[in-house]
């Protein structure tokens, strides 16, 4: 066929609406993918940037040793921004008072991500600044002002250096990183450190090289440096597992959403292409009698598909871009992060999706047109061979697989989603067919709408089975998305419950416990119970010196040490967020000292149940037997201990205590009161960290809602395509009934009943399929606990019936309105 003929046929088909649905389905596929990926891409980048604030950088290299200059030079050569910090504990003096503080010395570039918040008055809201303390000055935590009795302008001593108090440090982006980065903060300039002379060999020092820049340069640097264990490469996922996991799950969800959107759109493309092909059987028959060869037919229709696909892709990309802009504008008030510029990737993704959809879902139907026998012009009953239909399904399935794997890059997610879909199709295909087969009636039963509908459902059993599955699948995919979304968001929210403790109090002396507790109970909401805290170190394992035990494990040098001093505690009952995985928790009143270890800690030091551990606590030797191994919920906002003793073992040692409480931001002045009354205690504020996590959760939730909305559009399109696909056979049947005297009301009520029944069946299929798929996805992919959702058991079938009846009746209006004469003459 000549190009001009193809163009003319394509134009006619588009204009007459024959190609319309396929064009729209392809357009929606491309548009959905483009807009979802545009938005998700930009939001993800924004979220990563936002969460980078927790590191004050994109990556960090941390070490107890000085970071070599070569690292900095290598980073700068790759165009990365760099900054350095040094954190160490030190006593500072202001006149007669002294206080243990955590000093952070920073250079001019700090922080690379996020902002420092400073103020002029303690315990007040501050303002963001781009500066760092000037040489010769320090910024202090609010609570240091009452604790040391100083004011701005006073001079304090840090080691041998005298530094002027300049401002109040309200917040720093990477403060939340280390839980045991104890003591109130004193921030100073890095150039003043040598003058203090406190940095000596053996000091507890934490050097950090902060890095920020393009992802590939960061990864390139990591590869180039090939760090020894003395230097730790830190990214957000490692430093803050809470946020890391939230981001991972969000990413999986958004991918799942995109994936389901593509699948649904693919089904819509397949259905509409199939219908188009079916309506062109005669057309091809005629062309063949006129001498068109199978090759010409193939070439002609594939060119036509390419043309329509091209138009759909261009329009889809434009629509996707536009939709994304509208969404960003609409959410501008909700999304506080500044979105970075879009990349070309989403457009590439949209184009490829369009091509794959056209190839896998539409092309088989077009290819089979070449096999239509020209005898069809005389014998209209000759159609497509059943074998070729299976080829179409196979191509569709293969296309789905390629799209899923390519789009999610996650075999597990793809496997479970596909397994759910295939399982549901098999089981319910058989079930629907059996249901429709039962009670087969003779004739059309054209007396009442309901009976006509039932008879119609049974007569077109195989088409209706397919339609139930398609409707069911569309509703199921939407339900899966709704359920997973609900589970994810509530899981995120439950991680940080309202009024979760956002302040920790440490270093409470035994005689201060009642007083602190009294004050906290009066002014704030008490969180955890009081933990005694005792510093101690492991000195031996099974009477082998700890150093020797550690050496026998042949670990690389420079990592953490078994002999490091740690916080020990003793409790009667196991803390709530701990789960015993080996051994048993001690019984009350046991005399022998027992110890419970955290699972990773025990594994990394080769310790197991029954081993005897020797400790040095304040110069005294204590021995205890390992009787249980625990896992911790690092995500819970409660104090976690690697080593917990049974009550009898440490009761006689002097301990300080720690507790936690929830405090509203507006009640922050309470800290002043608490610290004035008990100047030696240490308060750690994590309310800013919690607020930041909540902000991220809120943003991710919005993205999740958006994806759901877009997939909903694809789902509706599938419904319309499926109803369109069955329109032709319904049309001829109903035209005949009307010609024989059936009223419009009869046809209308029959259609309504048919769609209601189909929708109810589809709803049942969807509910069961969704429960199964969600159960597996929750446990296998999202690591959430699986549960049933009784509310969808009624909602699914009812919503299915209503939606399908509405869409079906709207799409079939012409069935009722077209004069029967036109229907019978085949001119509809």
């Amino acid at each position, binding site marked *: 066929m000549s190009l001009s*003929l193809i163009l003319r046929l394509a134009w006619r088909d588009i204009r007459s609406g024959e190609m319309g649905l396929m064009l729209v389905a392809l357009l929606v596929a491309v548009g959905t993918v483009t807009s979802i990926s545009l938005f998700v891409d930009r939001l993800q980048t924004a979220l990563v940037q936002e969460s980078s604030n927790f590191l004050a950088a994109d990556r960090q290299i941390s070490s107890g040793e000085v970071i070599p200059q070569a690292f900095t030079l290598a980073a700068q050569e790759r165009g990365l921004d760099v900054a350095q910090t040094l954190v160490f504990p030190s006593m500072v003096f202001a006149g007669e008072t002294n206080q243990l503080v955590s000093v952070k010395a920073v250079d001019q570039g700090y922080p690379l991500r996020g902002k420092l918040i400073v103020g002029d008055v303690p315990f007040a809201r501050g303002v963001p600044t781009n500066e760092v303390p000037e040489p010769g000055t320090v910024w202090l935590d609010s609570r240091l002002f009452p604790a040391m009795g100083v004011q701005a302008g006073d001079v304090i001593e840090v080691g041998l250096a005298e530094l002027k108090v300049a401002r109040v440090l309200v917040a720093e982006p990477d403060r939340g990183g280390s839980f045991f980065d104890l003591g109130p903060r004193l921030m100073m300039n890095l150039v003043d450190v040598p003058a203090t002379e406190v940095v000596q060999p053996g000091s507890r020092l934490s050097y950090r090289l902060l890095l920020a820049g393009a992802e590939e340069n960061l990864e390139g640097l990591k590869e180039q440096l090939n760090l020894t264990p003395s230097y730790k490469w830190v990214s957000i996922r490692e430093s803050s597992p809470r946020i890391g996991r939230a981001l991972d799950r969000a990413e999986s969800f958004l991918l799942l959403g995109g994936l389901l959107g593509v699948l649904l759109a693919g089904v819509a493309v397949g259905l509409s292409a199939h219908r188009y092909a079916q309506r062109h059987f005669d057309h091809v028959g005629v062309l063949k*009698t006129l*001498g*068109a060869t199978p090759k*010409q037919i193939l070439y002609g229709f594939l060119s036509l598909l390419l043309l329509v696909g091209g138009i759909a892709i261009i329009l889809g990309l434009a629509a996707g871009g536009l939709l994304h802009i509208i969404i960003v504008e609409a959410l501008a008030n909700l999304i506080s992060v500044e979105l970075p510029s879009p990349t070309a990737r989403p457009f590439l993704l949209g184009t490829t999706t369009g091509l794959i959809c056209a190839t896998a879902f539409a092309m088989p139907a077009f290819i089979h047109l070449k096999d239509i026998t020209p005898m069809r012009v*005389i014998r209209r009953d000759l159609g497509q061979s059943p074998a070729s239909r299976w080829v179409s399904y196979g191509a569709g399935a293969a296309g789905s697989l390629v799209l899923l794997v390519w789009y999610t890059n996650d075999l597990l997610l793809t496997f479970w989603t596909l397994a759910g879909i295939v399982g549901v199709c098999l089981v319910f295909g058989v079930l629907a067919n059996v249901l429709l087969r039962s009670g087969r009636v003779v004739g059309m039963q054209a007396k009442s709408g309901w009976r006509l509908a039932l008879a119609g459902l049974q007569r077109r059993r195989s088409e209706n089975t397919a339609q139930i599955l398609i409707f069911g699948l569309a509703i199921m995919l939407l339900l899966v998305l709704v359920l997973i979304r609900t589970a994810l968001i509530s899981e995120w929210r439950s991680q940080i419950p309202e009024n979760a403790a956002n302040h920790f109090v440490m270093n409470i002396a035994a005689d201060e416990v009642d007083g602190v507790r009294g004050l906290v109970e009066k002014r704030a909401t008490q969180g955890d119970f009081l933990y005694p805290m005792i510093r101690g170190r492991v000195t031996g394992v099974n009477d082998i010196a700890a150093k020797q035990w550690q050496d026998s494990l042949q670990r690389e040098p420079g990592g953490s040490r078994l002999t490091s001093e740690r916080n020990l505690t003793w409790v009667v009952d196991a803390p709530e967020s701990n789960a015993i995985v080996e051994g048993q928790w001690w019984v009350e009143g046991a005399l022998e000292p027992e110890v419970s270890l955290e699972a990773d800690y025990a594994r990394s030091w080769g310790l197991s149940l029954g081993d005897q551990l020797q400790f040095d606590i304040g110069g005294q030797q204590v021995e205890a037997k390992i009787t249980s191994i625990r896992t911790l919920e690092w995500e819970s906002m409660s104090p976690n201990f690697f080593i917990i003793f049974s009550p009898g073992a440490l009761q006689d040692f002097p301990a300080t205590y720690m507790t936690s409480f929830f405090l509203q931001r507006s009640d922050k002045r309470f800290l002043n009161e608490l610290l004035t009354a008990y100047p030696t205690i240490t308060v750690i504020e994590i309310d800013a960290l919690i607020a930041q996590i909540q902000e991220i959760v809120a943003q991710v939730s919005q993205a999740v809602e958006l994806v759901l909305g877009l997939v909903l559009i694809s789902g509706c399109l599938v419904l319309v395509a499926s109803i369109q696909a069955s329109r032709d056979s319904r049309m001829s049947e109903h035209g005949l009934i009307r010609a024989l005297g059936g009223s419009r009301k009869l046809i209308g009520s029959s259609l309504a009943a048919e769609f209601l029944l189909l929708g109810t069946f589809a709803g049942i299929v969807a509910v069961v399929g969704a429960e199964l798929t969600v159960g597996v996805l929750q446990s296998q992919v999202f690591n959430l606990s699986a549960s049933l959702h009784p509310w969808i058991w009624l909602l699914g079938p009812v919503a299915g019936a209503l939606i399908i009846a509405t869409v079906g009746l709207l799409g079939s209006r012409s069935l009722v309105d077209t004069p029967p004469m036109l229907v019978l003459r085949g001119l509809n």
Partner: protein
Amino acid sequence: MSRTVVSVEAVEKVVPTAAGSLVILDGIDLEIKQGETVAIVGASGSGKTTLLGILAGLDEASAGRVMLVDEEISSLDEEARAKVRGQHVGFVFQSFQLLGSLTALENVMLPVELRGDTLAQSQAAQLLAKVGLADRVEHYPRQLSGGEQQRVAIARAFASAPTVLFADEPTGNLDTQTGELICDLLFDLNREFGTTLIMVTHDSRLAQRCSRTIAIAAGQIQA
């Protein structure tokens, strides 16, 4: 002596059914000369339409030899048969079989376009004028009456100047008066183009206008 344009030897058509093989055509031998007008008649289910499909190369015989304008089409695949149809064959069908998305003119142009001929438009317009539809060239099939649609179909059939014209119940969907007019048109053009006309019909008056009648019963030619 005119040459033979269609010849059939021992043609059989057997189709498998659930109840076993069904013989539709059973040992058909036939020869048709250039310029002949032949009516194939018979009761419903006698196999006449199947025979027409095999003669025209639309369908394949289960056994036997079929020659169409010097080509042994029974040994050709669909690709090659389509080329033979495009070069030598025209069709007129009971249900007109116009493409609804093309105008009358475009429908007539179609066979010539399929051959890659560029003079299609003027030829097509002339043919439409010949069948009395000069003022309906831009109309779509749905805007035309049954008789008019069949006239477009006849114009299309002659557009490629075929050697053989096959017609399947060409007046079957038309009233008597329109049927007569269509019949006149078909025979007039046939004479003018010197085409061989082979038609399947139930209409005895139409059959009588043909130079030869072949009667089929139970898949065999009746003497």
